[in-house]
């Protein structure tokens, strides 16, 4: 067995996926070639980490913590029975937000134009208009003068 074939057979050997003849060949090469033998050892040790991880312990306090989180999340999710946090509804919320902003802008624009009209109306000089149109002031002294004539 050459080095290339040896390297490509490490996983198969570690999983006993070999015939007895190939196993002998593999082990014979490992005893002859230091580099290949070290490589095999390293890969076997690396793959052994998977076995260690299988016995990993999880935090025992995670269970009450997660129960509390689930409870909080479900309470937040249901606002008057309406699923406010559903991601699918986010575009709808965005649309409503934009619509409200546009409506507010329109309403404020109308109000502004109403205020301007009132301002213009207040600024008209009544006296100058009356004199221009030659209309007597029926509420003032002009009326008596007009009747005497």
């Amino acid at each position, binding site marked *: 067995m050459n080095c290339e074939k040896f*390297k490509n057979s490490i996983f198969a050997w570690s999983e006993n996926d070999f015939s007895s003849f190939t196993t002998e060949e593999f082990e014979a090469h490992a005893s002859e070639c230091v580099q290949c033998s070290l490589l095999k050892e390293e890969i076997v*040790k690396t793959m052994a980490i998977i076995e260690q991880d299988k016995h*990993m312990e*999880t*935090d025992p306090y*995670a269970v009450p913590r*997660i*129960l509390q989180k*689930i409870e909080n999340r479900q309470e937040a999710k249901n606002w008057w029975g309406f699923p406010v946090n559903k991601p699918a509804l986010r575009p709808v919320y965005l649309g409503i937000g934009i619509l409200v902003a546009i409506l507010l802008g329109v309403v404020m624009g109308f109000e502004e134009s109403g205020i301007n009209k009132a301002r213009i109306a207040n600024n008209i000089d009544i006296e100058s208009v009356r004199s221009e149109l030659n209309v007597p002031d029926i509420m003032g002294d002009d009326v008596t003068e007009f009747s005497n004539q």
Partner: protein
Amino acid sequence: MTDKELITGIINRDNVATQFLVVNYHPKVIKTAYYFVHDMNDAEDLAQDVCVEILESARHFKGMSSLNTWIYRITVNKSLNFIRKNKRKQLFSQIENVFRKQDGYHAIEPQEPSFADTNTDNAERRKILERSINTLPENQRTAFVLNKYEDLSYKEIAEVMNVSLASVEQLLHRAKMNLQKKLIVHYSEYSKNKPNHELRKV
């Protein structure tokens, strides 16, 4: 409690059923998520999402597969989605770091997996293994994790991944070959860079 009783209890918002689900399945879900994301905090968050998903979509569970398989499927999907999102985030942060470096800021290095390993050689090996597994294509990684870490049979993996038995066999074979290749490349470079006397100590 049988699977059917548990599902009925969850649908009816029975607190006992919810507790049973969390107590019995949560540790398992954390472990599976950890095998994919390699970070305990992220795995806990994912397990929480999985539990909420189960509680919310229990009414859609038709019983075509076992509850175990269904939970595995949700966990795998959530973990893969998390990895995809994380990759995108990493890409953006890398771009951000490039610009920050140009501005004279120093980038903060990403945190290493939180697994406490007293043996430094083993910690190094763990990093190498996790990096190599992470570079496998998604379906190969899923098949490999479910087979090697979770000890699921080919039939169970086929049910979780919704593929045929032949596909599982092929995926696992490719995953092992790819992983072997990656480890060989890594350790061959490592042995080239390390002096011979140091190599013997390993």
